[in-house]
C-alpha cells in the first residue's frame, strides 16, 4: 500500500507540536549546547547538519514507512485508544515511543554511545474507577535495551514494544507493575498522509517540516492491566507516526489538541495554539476523516474551540480546561468534549521532565443534524510551569 500525498494542505498537526514541546528540552539542550571540541574533526563538525530534512516530495510506502527512519533526527509512534471490557467498564490508554537522534555518526565504538535516545510514555485511564496511572522509560540503545528497526516495523524500550505483524496488525505490549496493555490493532481506515507532497510544513524555512501520517480508526482487542487485574477489552485506537529533523515554532506557549472518533464513523482531529500575545494562531488546524476514509483540512478560522470548565492539579498547581465546546459550522459539527477523568495529568520527570495533560474524553453533540456520541483523546500542554519555562527558553 502506498500513498502519495498530493493535496496542497498545510497540515501542522497538533500531535506533531505536542511532541515538539515534549522534545524542546531535548532538542534545545542537544542542539544548543556548544559543539564539544573534537580536535580531529573540528572543521567538519561545525559546518554541516548531518540530519536529513523533510523536503518534498516524499512518497510514503507501507508497510516500510511504519519502520524507523534513523536519518531523521526526530521520530515518534503514537498510539491512543478507548476500549471497553465485556462487562462495560470503560478504559483509555496511551503508548508513545519517541526516538531523538543525538549523534549522527558517533566516533566512539562503544555500544553505549548515544546515537539515539528512546523514551516511551505509557498511561492507562480506568474511567469508571476514576483512576489514571502512567509510567515512562528512557533509554539509549546500549546492548539493545531500546531501539527501532529499519525494516519489519518494531520499536521497543526494554520490554515495552510496538510491532507490525505479517497480517498488517499492530501489536502493543507495555506492562509496568500494576498497569499495562497487551493489544492487537487492526489497521482500519487506510493511512492518511498529512501536508503537501508527503511533507507537513511547520514554518517558512524549507526543511522545517516533517513526514507525517495517521491511522485514525483502528479496531482494537486484547487486554489491559489495571491495578494488577488483567481485563479483556475491545475498542478503537488511533496511531500517528511522524519523522523529521526540525520543526519548532516560536511564540507559542502551548496547545490544546484532540482526536475524536464519532459513532457515525467520522474521525476528527483538531487543535489550537495558545500564543503569548493571546492572538489566534494561523497554524491552528484540524482534519476531518469521513467514514469512507476521505479527509479534509479545516483551516484555523473555520472552527471554534472553547473551554467550559477547568480542573486544578494538586501536584503541579496547573489548571487545565477539562471540558470543551467544539464547533465546525461548515461541516455541521457542534460537540461537547469532556474529560473522562479530570486527573489525567502526565508527569515525566524521569524521561523528558515535561508535564502535560493527556487523556480519554467522552463526546456528545450533533453532526450534520444528527445526534452523535463518541470517544477520543485530549492533549493539553504548556499549563504546568516547567513546560512553560522550557518553551520560552
Amino acid at each position, binding site marked *: 500500500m502506498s500513498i502519495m500525498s498530493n493535496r496542497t494542505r498545510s497540515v501542522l498537526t497538533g500531535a506533531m507540536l505536542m511532541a515538539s514541546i515534549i522534545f524542546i*528540552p*531535548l532538542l534545545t*539542550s*542537544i542542539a544548543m*549546547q556548544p559543539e*564539544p*571540541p*573534537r580536535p580531529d574533526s573540528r572543521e567538519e563538525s561545525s559546518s554541516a547538519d548531518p540530519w536529513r530534512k523533510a523536503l518534498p516530495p516524499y512518497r510514503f510506502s507501507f508497510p516500510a514507512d511504519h519502520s524507523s527512519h534513523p536519518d531523521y533526527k526526530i521520530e515518534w509512534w503514537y498510539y491512543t485508544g478507548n476500549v471497553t471490557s465485556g462487562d462495560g467498564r470503560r478504559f483509555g490508554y496511551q503508548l508513545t515511543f519517541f526516538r531523538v537522534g*543525538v*549523534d549522527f555518526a*558517533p*566516533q*566512539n*565504538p*562503544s*555500544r*553505549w*554511545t*548515544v546515537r539515539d*535516545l528512546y523514551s516511551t510514555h505509557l498511561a492507562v485511564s480506568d474511567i469508571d474507577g476514576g483512576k489514571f496511572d502512567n509510567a515512562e522509560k*528512557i*533509554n*539509549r540503545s*546500549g*546492548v*539493545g*535495551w531500546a531501539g527501532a528497526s529499519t525494516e519489519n516495523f518494531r520499536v521497543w524500550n*526494554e*520490554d515495552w514494544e510496538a510491532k507490525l505483524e505479517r497480517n498488517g496488525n499492530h501489536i502493543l505490549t507495555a506492562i509496568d507493575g500494576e498497569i499495562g496493555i497487551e493489544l492487537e490493532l487492526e489497521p482500519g481506515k487506510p493511512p492518511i498522509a498529512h501536508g503537501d507532497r508527503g511533507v507537513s510544513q511547520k514554518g517558512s524555512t524549507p526543511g522545517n517540516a516533517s513526514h507525517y501520517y495517521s491511522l485514525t480508526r483502528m479496531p482494537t482487542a486484547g487486554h489491559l492491566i489495571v491495578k494488577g487485574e488483567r481485563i479483556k477489552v475491545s475498542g478503537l485506537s488511533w496511531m500517528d507516526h511522524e519523522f523529521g529533523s526540525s520543526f519548532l515554532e516560536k511564540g507559542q506557549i502551548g496547545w490544546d489538541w484532540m482526536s475524536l472518533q464519532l459513532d457515525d464513523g467520522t474521525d476528527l482531529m483538531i487543535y489550537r495554539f495558545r500564543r503569548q500575545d493571546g492572538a489566534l494562531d494561523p497554524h491552528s488546524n484540524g482534519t476531518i476523516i469521513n467514514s469512507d476514509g476521505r479527509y479534509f483540512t479545516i483551516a484555523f478560522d473555520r472552527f471554534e474551540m472553547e473551554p467550559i470548565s477547568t480542573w486544578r492539579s494538586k501536584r503541579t498547581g496547573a489548571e487545565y480546561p477539562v471540558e470543551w465546546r467544539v464547533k465546525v459550522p461548515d461541516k455541521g459539527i457542534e460537540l461537547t468534549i469532556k474529560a473522562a477523568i479530570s486527573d489525567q495529568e502526565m508527569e515525566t*520527570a*524521569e*524521561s*523528558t*521532565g515535561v508535564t502535560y495533560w493527556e487523556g480519554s474524553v467522552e463526546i456528545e453533540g450533533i453532526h450534520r443534524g444528527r445526534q452523535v456520541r463518541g470517544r477520543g483523546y485530549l492533549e493539553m500542554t504548556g499549563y504546568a510551569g516547567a513546560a512553560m519555562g522550557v518553551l520560552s527558553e
Partner: protein
Amino acid sequence: MIRLFRQFILRHLGKEKIRTFVTVLGIALGIAVVVAIQMTNSSSLRGFEKAIETVSGKTSLEITGSGTGLDEMRLNELNWLRQYGRISPIIEGDAEIETGDALSETLRVLGVDILRDRSFREYKILEFAEQRREPRPDEFLTLLLDPRSIILTERFAERHSLKVGDQVLMTFSDRREQYRIRGLLKNEGPARAMDGNFALMDIAAAQQAFNRIGRIDRVELLLRDRGGLDEAEKAIGAKLPDGLSVQRPARRGSQVEKMLEAFHFNLTALSYIALLVGLFLIYNTISISVITRREENGTLRALGVTGKQILALFLTEASVLAVIGCTAGLLLGRLLAFGAVKLTSTTVNALYIATAAEPPPLELKHAIIAFGIGLPLSLIAAAIPALEASGVSPTSAMRGNDRIETRFRLRPHFLVLPALLGLLAWWFSRLSPVNGLPAFGYAAAVSIVFGAAFMAPAVLFVLGRIGDKPLFRFFKIEGRLANANLSGAIPRISISVAALAVSLSMMVAIAVMIGSFRQTVIYWVEQTLKADLYMRPATRNNVADDIVFSPEAERVVAANPMVAAVDRFRNFDISYGSGLVTLGTGEFDKQLRHGKLIFKAPADGQQAMRSAIGQNAVIVSESFSIRHAKSVGDTIMLDTPKGETGFRINAVYYDYSNDRGIVVMDRGTYVRYFGEPQATSLSVYLKPGADADRVRDDLNKQFGSRFNILIYTNTSIRQEVLRIFDSTFSITYALEVIAIFVAILGVASTLLTLILERSREINILRLIGADRRQVRKMVVIEAGLMGGVSQGIGLVIGLLLSLVLIYVINVQSFGWTIQFHLPVGFLIQSSILILLATALSGLYPARRASKLHISRQQEEE
C-alpha cells in the same frame, strides 16, 4: 588527701622535671606508636571502604562476572532482573589527573548511564545552566555526551582552582588526553568519595577511556522492595547464569580487608612491642618516685598516714603521669600516623590498593585504645613498687633501709622459667595459623621474649662474677666499681636490661629477617627478570581496578625494529575462597623460551609448565600454594565466565610480587574460558645487540604526550623492585627506632634510680678520694655495661626470633620462602651504636652522681 597529694606528689613531679618528662615521654611514645599504627591500618582500608560505601549509594546488590568484568551482551540474559527493581551498568576505575607541574592526583571515576543511574546515587550539579536548579535527565546526559566530557566535584575544583569549561589532562589506563569539565558536583552523594577525588563520566566515554569497550565492570541493582534484600539476593543468586554472581557492594571492601589483614596484623604486633618497652619505663619511673622519697614516706607513715594511703598516693601519681602520657601519646600518635601512612602507602599502593594519603581524624575509639591500654598498664606497672613502698615500716623508711632485695641469689626458677618458655615457643612455632594469621607465631615470639627477660638476672649474675678482671684491666678501678655496683643491683637493673634486650632482640630479628628476605628477592629478581624492557600503563594499579594497554600502544611496541618478542601478560584479581587471588595469563612458550621462572615443585618445572599448554592446567605461586594448601597435582576450582571450572596445578613457582597468591594459565587456556586477553603489562625481549636504553627512549618518543606508559629496563625494574621492597620495611624500622629510643630512656632512668639509691656509697667514694671525673666515668661505664649486656642478650634472642619470623610468621602470613642470610655488617654497626648510645645515656645520671652533696651525707655518717 588532696593536699597531701599536692605536696607529696605534685611538688615532687615539678621538681624532678626531667624525670617526669622522661616518664611521660615513654608512655606517650608507647601509646603514640600503637595509635599511629591503628590509624595507619584503618586509613588504608578506610579510604577504600568509605569510597565503596559512598560510591555505591543506594545500590542494594551488584552482579559481577568472573574474570574481567562481564561481557556487556550478557546483560540481555539479565532482563528478568527488572522484576526486582532497576538496574544500572557500571564502569569504575582510577584515572590520573594532572593538577600542576609534574603533579597528579588519582580520581575515582564512575562511568554510568546517567538516565538510569540517578535513582542509584545523588548527583547534585552545582549551578546548572547558571541557575540554581537540577538538570533534567536529558540535560544531564548532554553534559556527558562528548567522549571527552567529565564532571568533577566542587571540592576538587576548589582545591585546584578549576571551573566549568576548563580543560584538564587526564590519563586513563595508558592514554593521556584532554577532558573538558562540563559540570561540578556538590559535596553530596558519591562526590564525597575520596575527599572529592571523584569524577563522573558517561558509560560510553568511560568504556573507551579505560579500554573496556564491550564489557562492563558490574551491574548494580536497586531493589523495588528494599526490605526483601536477603530473599532477593538468594533468589537472584540461584537464577543467575554461569559465570555471574550477585553480592552486596560492601563485599568488595571485605575482600580487600581480608587481603590487607596479614599486613595489618604484623604492623599491629610490632606496635605493641614499643608499648611493652614503654611499660618498663613506667615501672622504672614509679620506682624512682618511691625510692627518692623514702624519707618523706617514712615521715608520713610516722605521722599516721596509712600504708593504703601511701599506695593510693603513688597510684594517683601513676594515673596522673599516665593520663598526661596517654593524652600526649594520642596527639603524637596522630602526628606519627602522617609519617606512618606515608611510609606504608607505597607498599599498600604497590601491592594492594590505591589509598588516601591521609590518616583518619582522631576519633573516640582512638582515645579508648590509648587510655584503655595506657591507663591500666601504667597502674599495674606502678602497683609493684608502690606496694613495696606502702609495706615499709615507718622506722625503716625513715632510716633509709627500705631498699628491697638488694642482694641477688641465683634461684632455680631463673633458669627453669626461661627454659619452659623456650619449650613453649618451640611448641607454638609448630602450630598452624589461625584464620590465615600467624597468631601462634607471635605467641612463640612473645614466649621467647619473656624467656629472655626472665633470663636477664641470671645472665647479669654470671657476667658480674666473671666480669671483674677484664673490666679492671680496661677501665681500672672505675670499671671494677661499675661491675660491682651493677652486680649489687641485679633485681633493679635486670628489668631495664630485659627491656632493652627485648627491643634489641626484636631489632636484630627484624634486621635478619629483612636482610634474608632482601637477599632472597635479589636472587629471585636476577633469576626471573630476563626481559629487556618491562612496560605498564602509568595509572596506579588497584585491586578492584583493571588497567590495560590500548591497542595503539601495543602496535607501537610491536612495530619497533629492535623488538624480538613481546610477552603480553594479563592479570587481575578474582575471588577465590573468601578473598582475592591474582589470575594471570601469558604465553607459556614465550616465557619458557625467554624467561626463567624458579620452580619450587616439581623438579622439572619447565617441563611441567610446558605440559600445561593446551590443558586445563595452571602454575601457581608459592604463596598461593601455601595459603590455600594446594600443590602440584591438586585441582583448583575457578569461577570463569563459562562457569566454575577445575584446573590442575602443574607446577609451583617462587614469586615475591604479591602475597595473595597468583594463578597463571597459558594464553590458549585463558582464551577458552575468559576470552581474548588485553595486556596489563608487556615484557619485551630485544634482538641481540640492541641497546635497551635507546629502545626505551625511542618508544618514549613515539608514545610522546599521548600515552602515559612506564617503561623499565631490566636494570631499572630491579631497582624498582628493591625500592618497593625497602619502602615496605621502612615502617618496620621506624617502629624499631622508637622502641629502642624508649628502651634507652629506660636505661637512663634506671641508672638515675641507682645513683639516687646509692648516693650514700657514692659519697663515701668521694670522701675516700674519688674525684668527680672518676664518679662520672664509673656511671658511664655502668650504662655502657647495661647496654652491652642487653645487646648481647638481644643478639642471641634476636637470632632465635628471626627464625620464628622467617620460618613461621612470614610463611603463615605471606607464604614466601626466605633463604636465611645474616646481615653481619648491620649487626656489628648497630651493636656499636647501641653501646655508644647507652653509654651516652649514662651522662646525665653521671652528672647527677658527681654533684651529690657531701655535707648532708657526712652528717649522717
